[in-house]
């Protein structure tokens, strides 16, 4: 079956939806324990839902850590093996997770980006490019940031103060992990990064105070949507991580 990726931003909540990738995978695993094959369970889910189902929040099925890709690979592999349908199955996935998986796992072969509709990411990309260019000009020649951006110069200076410090290794790694993995609990970050729990809490607290990260459902920490260009620029210049470059329209780097 053909799949296509619809790139989302801001990690919209989808945990309770029956179309959430995590719920679909869990249901298929439970069916497998009850002696029904995993692909069959998926096929049953597709047939029982609306005529044109959508898979949501695919990025919640993986974490960037050893062993963290298994669930995602299982689901995508099984879906790809199902017989073709009238239209490709749209799979909503966060743009940064997709950029990482595209490079690291060649996921765009199995899950190419949807061409029929413009995704939330594509509608925001030009704004983000403009914001990142403005940050470059601020750093390079001291040109003040334009007022219409979603973040202020103070927001940038506050984050820069943290990221630029040479000893802020764990802070940079935490932001990079939040960018790729999405909403995370302190225990998850502790496992992903090998931090001890108090350090993870301290770093998250620092990032929340800086205005870059917010809490969701009381327990999960996520990068604020308005702060995404700041984080992308900051990580690019400190860690070299440039996830947006592989998602730019061809002809632009």
């Amino acid at each position, binding site marked *: 079956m053909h799949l296509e990726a619809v790139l989302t931003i801001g990690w919209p909540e989808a945990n309770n939806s029956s179309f959430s990738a995590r719920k679909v995978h869990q249901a298929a695993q439970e069916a497998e324990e009850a002696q029904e094959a995993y692909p069959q369970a998926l096929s049953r889910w597709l047939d029982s839902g609306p005529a044109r189902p959508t898979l949501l929040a695919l990025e919640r099925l993986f974490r*960037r*850590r*050893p*062993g*963290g*890709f298994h669930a995602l690979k299982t689901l995508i592999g099984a879906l790809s093996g199902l017989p073709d349908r009238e239209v490709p199955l749209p799979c909503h996935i966060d743009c940064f997770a997709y*950029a*990482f998986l*595209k*490079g*690291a*796992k060649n996921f765009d072969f199995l899950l190419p980006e949807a061409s029929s509709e413009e995704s939330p990411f594509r509608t925001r990309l030009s704004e983000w490019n403009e914001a990142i260019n403005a940050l*470059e000009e*601020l*750093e*390079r*020649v*001291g*040109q*003040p940031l334009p007022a219409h951006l979603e973040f202020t*110069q*103070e927001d940038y*200076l506050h984050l*820069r103060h943290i*990221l*630029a410090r040479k000893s802020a*290794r764990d802070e*940079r*790694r935490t932001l*990079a*992990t939040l960018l790729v993995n999405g909403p995370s609990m302190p225990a998850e970050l502790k496992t*992903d*990064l*090998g931090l001890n729990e108090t350090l993870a809490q301290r770093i998250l607290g620092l990032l929340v105070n800086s205005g870059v990260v917010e809490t969701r459902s009381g327990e999960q920490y996520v990068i604020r949507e308005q702060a995404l260009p700041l984080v992308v620029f*900051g990580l*690019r*210049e*400190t*860690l*070299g*991580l*440039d*996830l947006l*470059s*592989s998602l730019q329209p061809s002809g632009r780097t």
Partner: protein
Amino acid sequence: MEFLADALLNGYVLSYLLIVILAQMGLAGWYRFQRYRLTRRRRRQGLPPDILIDQTQRWSELRRGAFWEAGVLLGTVVIVPFIMIYFAAPESALSKTSEEAAAPAQAGLALVFVTLLLWLLLNGTDVAKAFLGGLAFKTLVAFQRPLQVGDRVALKGHRGKVTQLGTFFITLQTSDDDVVNIPTRDLWSEVLVSANAGARASLCVMPFYLDPKVSQEQRQAAEDAIWEAIQASAYFEPAQPMQIYLTQTPEAICLTAKAYVASTYQESLFCSDVTRAFLEFAAREQIPLASPA
């Protein structure tokens, strides 16, 4: 002798020499002023002196700088004397020189011009050699791009990050925070090795050694563990390919991982991340590692 004295000791020759010297000083002063303006502008925006941008010098800026430096030197040495000879000619409408003073003035200009030219071509003194050799190398670098500021390079036995590409010295900062200044003119005949060639990412090669008696399952599990450890590292560059190669020696089975680190300056941290993850895996799964004989 009197003619020679008249030729050399006149306003035109003095002006010519002053123009050559002041042009170089003026250009250096202009760059210093531009840097001061930039620092002040950044300070007004609340930014500290260090620039966060990875590649601090755009190629266009480097080329422009090299073009101006070389152009000012050649222009003042070669073009200015001809202009002044024209002004010195008594038949020139702009000339205020009398016929008696014109001939020695023009002869003096010509003599000083030829002397300067020979001095430039033959690198008469060590300072001239250093300046001209360095300027020529800087101009070459601006257009041919063998290396740039921010590259991790190996030059004359020293490894480090290029922090400054000057006319007299190229400055490297080593991993031990030593500052090494290498005379620029000495690099003409050197082999220049750059780990990242202007890019942010660079290749890391990480060998891991298993005991030759490991089983096939253990070997495969080790390979998978290295693969996942690399992809899980926050320093990994996902847009570049990675590979793991196997080789065998009598002492060990060597798994060599080749992967790109997103920022070349984080290479040590990247290798450390992956190595730590692999060692933890090996201890957990009791995979025997190679030990010295």
